[in-house]
């Protein structure tokens, strides 16, 4: 027996995140580096501990090695309690066979016994690919006050973007009367953030029903939530104000990083926990131009930097110029290289005088422009030019 936990959080971290292309070739989306020293998963995990939630299950499926290793025993997030903490939960074999997680709801269904151990009153379902800071207690209070079976966090999005989201249409009291998944003509701008609080008793029942329905695709958004609404359960939208970003695409990942450099964006990194690099402070050489950037420990900066983010242990050679780019841990930018509007993944090597990416102003046709991505551990040879919008997944040399 283990002591009861009022709330158990389950983080959905199994998706491939195929829209991030080469960045998620060898790791799951929640393990993608973010913000100079974090990985995306640090945000939901830190939110949990800062909200006093001490039992967290992370549902992993796609390429879990990096994520598993990173989470470890959960100590960096204080999630290494005696009776609670963080666990990575992969699909497993049981009597009667083994199943992959066929959908978000199925992933929770297969771990009902994990949740039951804690005998919780509530289960908090989170996504492992969102950047935001939130006190889940406020949402829980809202859930309790409304005597809801399910509460969904919602954020007001610009009208023109609303059709990209799941829209929650609500009554005046906040109760939901309709789900509108990516509507062509949205009735409101109340977008679901993919953060759900369920009363465990109710959810447990619906998960079992859902698993027994052969026609279901075992997804919260498509199946479980609509079924609950049809059954007349009390479901509420919790209005969240603050910074929130789904970083599922290269553009949104790049933008969210750049948001950290914008003093007008309300995302600060206080009390976001992570594993810390064991490296000395970073070094800035003489004659370097350095503006509006974030730099982690262990970097050696000999070149110019503006509107950029350097992760731990990055080397920037003399005369190199980095502009509006994200350089992930251990990458090397050689002398004279120019990196603009790019994401350079871990341990990539950009050769001398190579040019990676371009300023959107310098491109004639805006449709040809996009953020350039260099995959991890790749070598871009000296003098190679990598065009904007390119996604590089193999080494490049200048053709002779």
């Amino acid at each position, binding site marked *: 027996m283990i002591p009861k936990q009022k709330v158990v959080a389950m983080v959905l971290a199994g998706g491939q995140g195929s829209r991030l292309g080469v960045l998620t070739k060898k790791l799951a989306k929640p393990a993608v580096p973010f913000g100079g020293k974090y990985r995306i998963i640090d945000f939901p995990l830190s939110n949990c501990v800062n909200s006093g939630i001490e039992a967290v299950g992370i549902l992993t499926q796609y390429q879990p090695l990096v994520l598993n290793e990173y989470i470890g025993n959960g100590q960096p997030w204080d999630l290494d309690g005696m009776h609670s903490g963080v666990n990575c939960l992969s699909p497993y074999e049981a009597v009667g066979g083994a199943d992959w997680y066929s959908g978000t709801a199925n992933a929770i269904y297969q771990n009902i016994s994990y949740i039951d151990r804690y005998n919780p009153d509530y289960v908090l379902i989170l996504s492992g690919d969102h950047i935001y800071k939130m006190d889940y207690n406020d949402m829980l209070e809202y859930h309790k006050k409304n005597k809801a079976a399910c509460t969904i966090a919602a954020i007001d999005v610009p009208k023109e973007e609303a059709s990209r989201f799941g829209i929650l249409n609500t009554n005046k009291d906040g109760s939901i009367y309709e789900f509108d998944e990516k509507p062509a003509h949205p009735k409101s701008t109340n977008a679901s953030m993919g953060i759900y609080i369920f009363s465990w008793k109710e959810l447990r029942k619906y998960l079992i029903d859902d698993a027994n329905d052969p026609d279901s695709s075992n997804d919260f958004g498509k199946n479980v939530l609509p079924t609950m609404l049809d059954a007349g359960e009390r479901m509420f939208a919790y209005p969240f104000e603050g910074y929130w970003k789904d970083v599922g695409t290269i553009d949104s990942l790049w933008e969210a990083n750049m948001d950290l450099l914008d003093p007008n964006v309300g995302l600060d990194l206080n009390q976001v926990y992570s594993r810390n690099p*064991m490296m000395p402070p970073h070094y800035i050489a003489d004659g370097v131009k350095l503006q509006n950037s974030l730099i982690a420990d262990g970097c050696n900066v000999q070149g110019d930097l503006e509107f950029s983010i350097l992760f731990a242990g990055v080397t920037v050679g003399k005369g190199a110029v980095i502009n509006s780019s994200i350089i992930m841990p251990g990458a090397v930018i050689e002398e004279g290289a120019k990196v603009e509007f790019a994401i350079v993944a871990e341990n990539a090597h950009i050769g001398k005088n190579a040019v990676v990416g371009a300023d959107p102003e310098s491109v004639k046709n805006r449709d040809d422009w996009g953020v350039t991505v260099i995959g991890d551990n790749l070598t871009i040879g000296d003098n190679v030019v990598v065009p904007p919008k390119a996604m590089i997944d193999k080494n490049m040399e200048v053709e002779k």
Partner: protein
Amino acid sequence: MKSNDVLGVIFSNSCEDTLTELTAHRTTASVPIGGKYRMIDFVLSNMANSNVNNVGIIAKSGFMSLMDHIGSGSAWDLSKKRSGVKILPPYAGVNFANKIETLYQLRGYISEATENYVLLSESNIVFNIDYTELFYLHSVNEADITLLYKNMKVPEKLMPVTVKHDNVGKVEKVFIQPEVKGNCNLWLGSLLIGKELFLDLITKAMSENELNFNRLVQKWVDEYSVFAYECPGHCDIISSMNEYFRFNMSLMDADLRKELFQYDRPIYTKVRDDAPCKYGLTSSVKNSLVSQGCFIEGEVENCIISKGVHIKKGAKVSNCIIMQDTEIGKDCNLSYLIIDKDVVISDNKSMMGADSFPIHIEKKSVIN
């Protein structure tokens, strides 16, 4: 002999008299250094990296900051079932007056340890060493005692103890405060010795009222098989304010950083969850080491800046060591200062030390 058969014992108050202001409210071991470290991180990480899994740190006074820094020891991976780090404060009203008395008082702790060897060290040595080679040579030489030394200049204000050894490393003589020109074989105050022998020798010294540790070591050379082992690689002893200033500034050298902060033998320190350092639109930085959690809006040149420091717009800071969470106001003009933790310097202040005389600003000072 095996590394995990060695008990590490570190003196936390090395050279505290000559480090003056820096050790006014803290032990030498917990003096901030190199931007994000404390002095003891070097020797403690070396021990942890060499499988010396059980370490005692002798604390004489002012050890709050040391306790805070060491915590459970988990930052050095020294908080396991089979490893640990303990702070050993004076107890039962006994003062730790000198090394011999201190070690005598701690004989219970030392004898209860399961390890069969003791590795003594000072806390103010800056180096990155794999002790296993020393352990190996100790057993190959069938030595009773092995002294760790370095051929180097005598650091300022340090009373030198030097070793003379033959061509196989056997120590012939130990000199206390000899006249030294240029380099000498400087004993680093660190030695390896069998535990039982060590306890016997300390008890004997007490009974003979021999309370000078250096003189005791000098005497051992005649009676026991004492060998010397030269510390490979870079080594600094932080013995004075000037040495402290000089060492910090020497970290601008990339090769030295590479040698001290090795990838497979990291120097660990207490973890603080700082965000990466943020540089504002008006920042200008030259030849400086800057830690995470800082916000730099002003001009910085030749500085070592610790965690969480804020340098505001228009401030010009050069040749300074700035410790954690200090705030420097707008349009300040500062040079050659050692600014301690949590200092607040308000706007428009000008303060200057000199290269040969950096001025220390006390912890938590508020300069209005």
